[in-house]
């Protein structure tokens, strides 16, 4: 007899996500994922100045803040044929690196850790033992017995107050929690430290973009100027500030995040290194250009596709091939004029909102009908997983030495085979390894920026096509990035100096979407199948796998273009 379980809201994510599962004999046999909020930002962009678009789409998400803005300026530049100066590319890379680091650390400690760490259990820990463990895995200085005793006392006081705040009604004591009390205490201490720490690295955004969340971007370059003889520009003090922030980030990631990740993984690797793998196809658009955005082969993280977990072959992703990316609405609350069973390339972006779900308040969605605000994208008809795991796998399969090195070292430390990557834990580990790699890359970008300035190149902006009078009557382009949560692409058509059509295909759309016309599940739904559920009333296991993707629903449900447009040509780049 199947038991139906609804989890809504899924918390510790961005946005509004609902998951319904069917459990048979303690195992998930079916799963449905639904985005339950819509805003309609694409429709709002129509007829606006393309140079303003970064600010609008930036507000698609404030968690992966800046990633949509970066994608947007790339998209407009691609559309108009603008090449930003090398310093602008480096500063954008530094900002994107800061985002990866901050976002991944916050995800690990504040959005994901409570799935593995039993906060209440840390009260039973022996702080002396925790101190011993901490010192055996890292040289991070805050590791004394006294320190962990204080943290424990703080949590004890908190629990005894009877007002648990954000920790209220957690799944504490659940049989799926496997960490010893002492490791729980270590993780809770670092939960609190990371909360204080994360606000530091974002200052990279503040220095170059004026604020965080939602720093400023600029089509053609970056808004800040470099002048090492001026107080009102990026000068030696500002540059040293940035360098210092990345040095500190590297220390924190090396001495706190990675040791914690490995320690926690070592207790869960045998089961969770084999659960939650889901789809077998992985997509990466690539990130961190070091020789111009139009040369993806120079990216630190390569572009490509892996099919059927075959790591011996990386398939080419072509942004100018209309047969590669299509979006479906057969299970989403929109309608296509040619019928809902066809897939459309984003530039044919025809999207009409049509809510046909139940009237709120409701108990269940009807999965024989449409059930989500998220559209269903496919790559050559395949359902794809996107995110840090996909990036690390594409990098690994492409033979990138730096990526291979950290992945192999981690597999060997945990004593697990490469297939353990295809799992819930693999996803979580890949995010950590990517953070580690990023701290190193960021320092390379930083050194290159210093070298350029030393050599006399302080340019941060290309003004050649700033004036709309220089633009063609009609132009189209695409911009691709790797957001913290995965492959992100924007598609743009400019007509008469205005936005004619703007479409976003975002990471969580790939991962969280409902089924396509062939009945193929997307990543969330597929990854839940076969997962054991110890207690259906407390489905902790579902949260582990869903959180391992780092859901971001505000991105995924932005789509709403009332009029629809038909574009049949693509620009090659």
């Amino acid at each position: 007899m199947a038991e139906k379980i609804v989890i809504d809201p899924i918390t510790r994510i961005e946005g509004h996500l609902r998951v319904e599962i069917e459990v048979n004999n303690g195992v998930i046999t079916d799963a449905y994922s639904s985005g339950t909020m819509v805003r309609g930002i694409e429709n709002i962009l129509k007829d606006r100045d393309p140079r303003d678009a970064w600010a609008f789409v930036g507000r698609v998400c404030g968690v992966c803040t800046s990633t949509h803005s970066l994608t947007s300026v790339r998209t407009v530049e691609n559309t108009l044929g603008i090449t930003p100066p090398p310093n602008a590319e480096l500063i954008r890379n530094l900002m994107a690196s800061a985002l990866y680091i901050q976002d991944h650390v916050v995800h690990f400690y504040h959005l994901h850790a409570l799935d593995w760490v039993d906060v209440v259990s840390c009260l039973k820990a022996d702080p002396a033992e925790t101190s011993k463990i901490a010192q055996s895995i890292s040289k991070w200085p805050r590791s004394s017995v006294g320190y962990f005793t204080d943290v424990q006392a703080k949590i004890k006081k908190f629990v005894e107050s009877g007002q648990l705040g954000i920790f209220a009604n957690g799944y504490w004591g659940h049989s799926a929690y496997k960490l010893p009390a002492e490791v729980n205490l270590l993780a809770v201490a670092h939960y609190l430290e990371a909360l204080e720490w994360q606000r530091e690295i974002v200052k990279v955004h503040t220095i170059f973009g004026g604020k965080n969340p939602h720093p400023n971007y600029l089509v053609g370059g970056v808004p800040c100027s470099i002048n090492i003889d001026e107080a009102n520009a990026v000068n030696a003090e500002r540059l040293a500030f940035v360098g210092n922030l990345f040095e500190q980030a590297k220390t924190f990631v090396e001495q706190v995040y990675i040791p914690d990740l490995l320690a926690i993984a070592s207790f869960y690797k045998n089961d969770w290194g084999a659960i939650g793998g889901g789809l077998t196809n992985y997509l990466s658009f690539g990130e961190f250009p070091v020789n111009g955005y139009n040369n993806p082969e120079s990216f630190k993280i390569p572009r490509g596709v892996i099919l059927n977990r075959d790591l011996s072959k990386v398939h080419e992703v072509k942004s100018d091939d209309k047969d590669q990316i299509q979006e479906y609405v057969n299970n989403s609350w929109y309608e296509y004029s040619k019928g809902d069973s066809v897939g459309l390339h984003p530039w044919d972006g025809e999207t009409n909102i049509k809510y046909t779900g139940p009237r709120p308040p409701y108990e269940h969605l009807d999965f024989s009908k449409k059930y989500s605000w998220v559209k269903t994208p496919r790559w050559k008809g395949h359902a794809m997983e996107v995110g840090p795991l996909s990036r690390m796998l594409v990098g690994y399969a492409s033979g990138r030495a730096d990526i291979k090195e950290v992945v192999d070292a981690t597999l060997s430390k945990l004593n697990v085979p490469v297939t353990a990557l295809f799992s819930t834990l693999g996803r979580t580990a890949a995010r950590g390894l990517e953070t580690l790699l990023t701290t190193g890359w960021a320092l390379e970008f930083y050194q290159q920026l210093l070298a350029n300035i030393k050599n006399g190149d302080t340019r941060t902006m290309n003004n050649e096509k700033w004036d709309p009078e220089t633009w063609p009557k009609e132009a189209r382009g695409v911009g691709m990035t790797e957001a913290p949560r995965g492959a992100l692409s924007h598609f743009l058509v400019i007509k008469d100096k205005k936005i004619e059509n703007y479409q976003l295909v975002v990471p969580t759309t790939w991962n969280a979407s409902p089924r396509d016309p062939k009945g193929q599940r997307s990543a969330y739904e597929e990854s839940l199948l076969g997962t054991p559920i110890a207690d259906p009333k407390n489905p902790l296991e579902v949260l582990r796998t869903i959180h391992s993707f780092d859901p971001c629903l505000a991105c995924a449900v932005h789509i709403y273009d009332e009029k629809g447009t038909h574009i049949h040509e693509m620009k090659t780049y």
Partner: protein
Amino acid sequence: MEKRPTFYEEVTSDGVPRRDFLKFCTAMAALLGLESSGIGQIVKALETKPRLPVIWFHFQECTCCSESFIRSSHPAVADIVLNKISLDYQETLMAASGFQAEAAYKAVMEKFPGEYIVMVEGSIPTEDEAFCCIGGRSALQILEEAVKNAKAVVAWGNCASAGCVQAASPNPTGAKPVHKVISGKPVINVQGCPPIADVMVGVVVHLLTFDRIPQLDALNRPKSFYSRRVHDTCYRRANFDAGLFVESFDDEGAKRGYCLYKMGCKGPVTYNSCGIIKWNDSTSYPIQSGHGCIGCSEAGFWDNGPFYQHLPSVAGFGIETTADKIGIGLGVLTAAGIAGHAIVTNVRKHKEIANEPESGSSSDNT
């Protein structure tokens, strides 16, 4: 009512020394613009008042307000505020999901009627309620139920205060701010996209300290943080007065930090604390980092663009008089007039600022 530990008890039991606690209170008093006598009031309030239960909802939003909130920069504040206000429901951070999560805020509503604060991040869709549902209920249903016995409502950011980006033309989902869909409760609009972290914390401390809502302007924004125009508190203001403008991004003027007015800066029509408190531990703010203010703490700022057109030429905006009057101290002027006039009246200032590096270095060398 249950006995709850006070803010001061919590802080000191967490190992925060009394000296640091007093420093925190002093910083908060400064933020709130209080006389030094106000510090004692904050200390007393935080020492003796019980913790405030808070229910924090997310509706049509992007979570930038939550992200900004956790950036609060004074020592231990993120920790203090997360714990001390008893954040009983906050979807981004809370451990529980599903019905356990819903149970958390329902418990607050039952246990503390009339005492809890409802904080809202995001707008509410009115074109069709079903455009935003949580746990099978619409944003509107959830909000209406929760505010019924709330003490007050805090609307975080531009979404909850004015609808923000999703309410920009043509507002496809009929997105509305909190104050347009509920009635009978005081609503504090903490504006900005997002609001500055220290402003968010400042509002919370005000509620804790004085046990009443702060003085509000005509748009329900706390006067302590939104009574000054970005233009009037801008460190580049002297350049405006001297007629020294950035004419294109990364030009010589930009490299010297001239005024961004001609690049579309909306500082002259935007009320916020960016020039005073600045962002992320006072690291910088948009103008300091070379981009004009886009006006994100004002209702409808998305439709006041384009962002890179300077104010007098924006059709139907009608702020010429204020922007130019304040800047130059005379009547309505065209953009060309601004520069012309500035040269006449501020020749000395203009020269001083423009030639600063040369004259500075020559005097140093003598």
